[in-house]
């Protein structure tokens, strides 16, 4: 029902993927991958505009019949993509924004760790816990 993913900019390979629940995972991965194109499009559209936190949140990338995809990009062009179930109408835009903000915060915490090389897969337990709690909260 919900998937989060983080992708690194230059090669667009995922740094972190998490789905809850775990069935249909492949479908979610595929959705996220295809939505990267939409994210890229939005980024290039922003272009010369200066990066601002409000613009970091890309909003609803596109809705399909089953689910909605939200995007968020950081200053360093790391993309966060979140897929949520359309039936979950309780999720408002603000909540999605706050979830992305939390993700971003945790991501910067990981970056502060000198043992983490940017571009590595993320194995941080703190990050895992945060993502899990967030997803439990939603589902």
């Amino acid at each position, binding site marked *: 029902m919900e998937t989060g993913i983080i992708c690194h900019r230059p090669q667009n390979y995922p740094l972190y993927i998490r789905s809850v629940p775990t069935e249909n995972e492949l479908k979610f991965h595929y959705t996220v991958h295809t939505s990267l194109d939409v994210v890229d499009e939005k980024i290039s559209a922003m272009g010369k505009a*200066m*990066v*601002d*936190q409000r613009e*970091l949140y890309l909003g609803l990338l596109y809705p399909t019949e089953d689910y909605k995809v939200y995007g968020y990009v950081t*200053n360093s062009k790391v993309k966060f993509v979140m897929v949520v179930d359309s039936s979950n109408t309780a999720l408002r835009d603000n909540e999605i924004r706050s979830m992305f903000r939390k993700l*971003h*915060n945790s991501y*910067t*915490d990981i*970056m*502060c*760790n*000198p*043992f*983490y090389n940017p571009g590595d897969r993320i*194995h*941080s*337990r*703190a990050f895992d816990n945060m993502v899990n709690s967030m997803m439990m909260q939603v589902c």
Partner: protein
Amino acid sequence: MEQGPAGGPAAAVAAAGVLVPLSESEQQRYSELFSRCCPPPEAAAGGSSVGELFRASQLPPDTLHQITEVCGAKRVGYFGPAQFYIALKLIAAAQSGFPVRIESIKNELPLPRFMALKNDSEVRYGTPAELHGVKFQTPHATLEKNSYKRTDEGDKQEPKSPPMSPICSPPASPSTYQRIPLTYGYGKSRSGLEQQHGAPYEVRHPTHQQDGSSSGNYGAKPALACSTLSRSLSVEREQPDSSAHYSDDPWRITEEQRDYYVNQFKSLQPDLNSFISGSVAKNFFTKSKLPIPELSHIWELSDVDCDGALTLPEFCAAFHLVVARKNGYQLPETLPETLLPDYLQAASLKPLRECALFDSYSEPLPGSQPTRDFSRMEKTSAEEVSDNSALIKDMSKDDKQAPKGSSAVKAIPKEFQHLTVKTAAQEPHALKARPRSRSYSSTSIEDAMKKGEEPPTPPPRPQKSHSRASSLDLNKIFQQNTQAVRSGWLPPPPPALPPRPSVSQTEQVSEVELHAQMNRPPSQTEENSSAKKEVVLAQPPSKPARRKLRTEVQGLETPELSPTINVTSSLPAAKSHLPVQKQSSKQKRAIQTAIRKNKEANAVLARLNSELQQQLKEVHKERIALETQLEQLRPVTVL
């Protein structure tokens, strides 16, 4: 006190008229131990072997005294089976942390733990769950044995031996976990360690020379040896620490460990109150040859404020975790309470003060004073962080203390600066919000203005500054305003700023405002950062140094803060007796000028507004004209 049935183990032991039941395993174990202690089938166990056994339980001598008393051996004069069993149960109780009393042994207790003596290195007492604990205690026991014998050599050789896995206990055994955790080839530290630990060993030996009373022969850990030297205060503190350390808390940092960590910290970063940066720490901890994911996890646990740098308590916690991992402990999921920076900082006071008594700890002494000041000031400033006016007083107070203070006069303002940064950073909200605002803010002026607009109303800014002197830099305003108007929205008037002419005094106040803003509850950190920028930007000629720093917004706030704080501390020191009335009258005047300038700015903006409205009307007219033309030219509309 009645004696239990002599000869054979008894299902129950009577003591003080109360039956104390023994479980199967306890019975077995106790009879084993009893037979060990008195090999020939005597009714009583030999005093020396019992003493050895009790020593091996690693309890402090007072406790062992108490136990012998309570179990009745003292009264009876020897250790009969009853006394022995009771004593064993009391030892188990004491090791679990219960007081030494008959009542406490009525409950089910774990079996008492005894250190494996050198002769019986393969025998392991205690439950299997204590295996980890035993691993640590084994080298300690062997060390004890060694030290008893080698009284003259001291233990200078001990620190030199490179530590292997703690399970192996050859004579060249690794130093105890408690004393010198592990040396990863950090050669510099060894000499320092030897100085420190040579002396305590010398100190301990005389106590063991006293014979006769069993108390002198009871084993003493170095912490306890120190305690026997000095007052009982430390004993009470050390007892729970040491017993807790050995029983079930490997996450407690002992004195030697702390000193070792502090020395290592000093070797990396001479200033005890500042940070170790991430890269430096990374190189350091990589030397420990732990795998990178584990080091990464240790960092996550210990860097509580997630700033990519380690303060002294954070460093101690990280080092302790590395040591624990090397010794075979699994890393916890969350940071244990005893490793929290607050706990470590509070704990660092007491032991350093007591260590001042010992000659052997002469090294940390100079370090302890600034540390004490640090924590004292931390406490005072932590309380006053929320109150700005009190903060101003605190600054002047601290600076007055500085000339009076004993050492480190220059260090105090710097400490204070670090304090304020760290105490602000340690607030739970600031943990998240502060770095966030830092990372999200960008360098452009427009964004600063935008951020200034977001909070409810701009006017609160002059209030924040407590109605002090303010003025506006008109040029800057016009520039910003025109830019803002072009981008489509009107910015609020920039915050109140001190007038240029009266630079000297208002400098101080503006610094104070900056400082106050730095320490404000982080719900307004975004506002603050923007306000700061605007304050600085509007004062380019008077504050070139600050401006230079401000332009690199992405930098940490610490370097930004330091020159401002230094200026601040020097200014109040220079003007320590500024009369308040002069300030208020100057402020009034400044406010009036500010009001006037605001009005002028308003007028300018209104004019601009009207001009734009005019243009808009004209454009509308043109549009209407064009539309009518289009209508005329278009052929008849299709239905």
